[in-house]
């Protein structure tokens, strides 16, 4: 890319939104939705009567709200939302070790039959969705951070030139 093209590309950011980062953040929400619709099962008895279930539901709501806010913020090149998205991405990865993994390792006895709370196929699905959601958050954050920094640098250069 020539210098002139790079300059125009930077200048374009003054008038266009960061739709790539925003779209990735929304995609992270979508993967999280896939995750939580595949995690809950009703046939595993008492294991699910656990405070974890309530916390998980609550966190899903918080995640969706925070990710949506971040998608709007990052669309407008607000660098603070990149940090929020990094945090959300890290938490999504951490969630793999908190809930699906615990459920995958846990068993429950129903009518004298020992049943694994989360069978392997369900576990893999949940892990993939959480990972995808986390990757989307992190990539969105990195792109957003880069673009926001570039734009603020460009604006500063413009202000300097004008002065």
């Amino acid at each position, binding site marked *: 890319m020539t210098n002139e*093209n790079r300059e*125009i590309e930077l*200048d*374009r950011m003054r*008038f266009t939104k960061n739709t790539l980062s925003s779209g990735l953040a929304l995609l992270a929400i979508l993967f999280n939705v896939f995750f939580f619709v595949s995690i809950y099962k009703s046939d595993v008895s008492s294991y699910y009567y656990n405070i974890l279930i309530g916390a998980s539901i609550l966190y899903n709501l918080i995640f969706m709200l925070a990710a949506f806010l971040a998608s709007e913020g990052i669309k407008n090149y607000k660098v603070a939302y990149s940090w929020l998205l990094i945090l959300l991405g890290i938490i999504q990865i951490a969630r793999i070790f908190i809930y699906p993994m615990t459920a995958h390792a846990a068993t429950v006895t129903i009518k004298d039959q020992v049943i694994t709370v989360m069978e392997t196929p369900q576990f893999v699905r949940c892990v993939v969705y959480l990972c995808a959601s986390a990757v989307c958050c992190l990539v969105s954050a990195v792109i957003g951070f880069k673009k926001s920094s570039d734009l603020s640098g460009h604006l500063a250069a413009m202000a300097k030139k004008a002065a």
Partner: protein
Amino acid sequence: MAQLKLEHVDKIYDNKVQAVFDFNLDVKDGELIVLVGPSGCGKSTTLRMIAGLEDISNGKLILDGKDITQTPAKDRDMAMVFQNYALYGHMTIYENMAFSLTLRKEDPNVIHKKVLAAAEILGLTEQLNKKPSQLSGGQRQRVAMGRSIVRNPKVFLFDEPLSNLDAKLRGATRREILLLHKRLKATMLYVTHDQTEALTLADRIVCMSMGHVQQVGTPLELYDSPNNLFVASFIGLPPMNFFDVKVEAGRLVGEQFTVSLNAEDQATLAGYVGKEITLGVRPENIEEGGEVCMNVFSNENLGMNTLVHGHLGNSKKASDKITAKLRGWCDHKAGDTVKLHFTRMHFFDKETTNAIRKGEA
């Protein structure tokens, strides 16, 4: 370069109503043509036919020597600016201006350059991140123009673009359009029913009535030498006064007045001696002190001038009403009698309503 030619163009709707009759026009490159006329005269229909938004029933439309009568609107390389702006409310000004080029999948960097250049021309650089709802009517109309400019079309078409603006803004935007035309040197067709816009903007005016072209000419030609009664009555504010008079040797005799003719007017009316004609006198061609008697019924002071309305002589007939635009501040009261003199007269054949010109009798 963009030369536009309309040859014998008709518009007949499916219900057999004919809106435009045998329209002929040759628009030169870089010319600003104004189509003017009262509502329903076919001027917008003509513009829409040129844009490709209406089918041409008969005739040809030629752009730069190429017949584009059947060419779809999108391929005509013309941009139209509408009265209601037609901006996308959910998009920013930048996105609105870039929209047509984005649809054509042009390089975003090229689009950016074009949008910034157009915004610079129109003074919209500071507004590019705003939404249309945050702009004034004049600014929105400039955005609509900007959207046309970025396309760099061969012909710009304006369909009453200033009608939604208040009087002050209309004047300012009119001047901007004129400057824009001078700067772009583009071929433009502009439709309006406002004669002030027509006179101030046009290189040439096409005056229309009932689907027919009445006269094509420069603003001065239409004002100074109207082809017929319609053009004479439509162009000029306040409108021209008309009276039925009889031509006699060296003078015109009306019901309420007699005016003598100068040598040039006598020559013009040489073939009409003894016949009845219509006399037209513009209010600004009337001075105080002369042979015509006016009984004043109202007096409007405009500062520099005064509009004096009255009846000729003692008549109370509507056809004997006269308006004079007198110089300076006058304080004529209702009932006053004022003597008037016509400094310039226009003559029209009573049967054909066409102007009587020297050597045409």
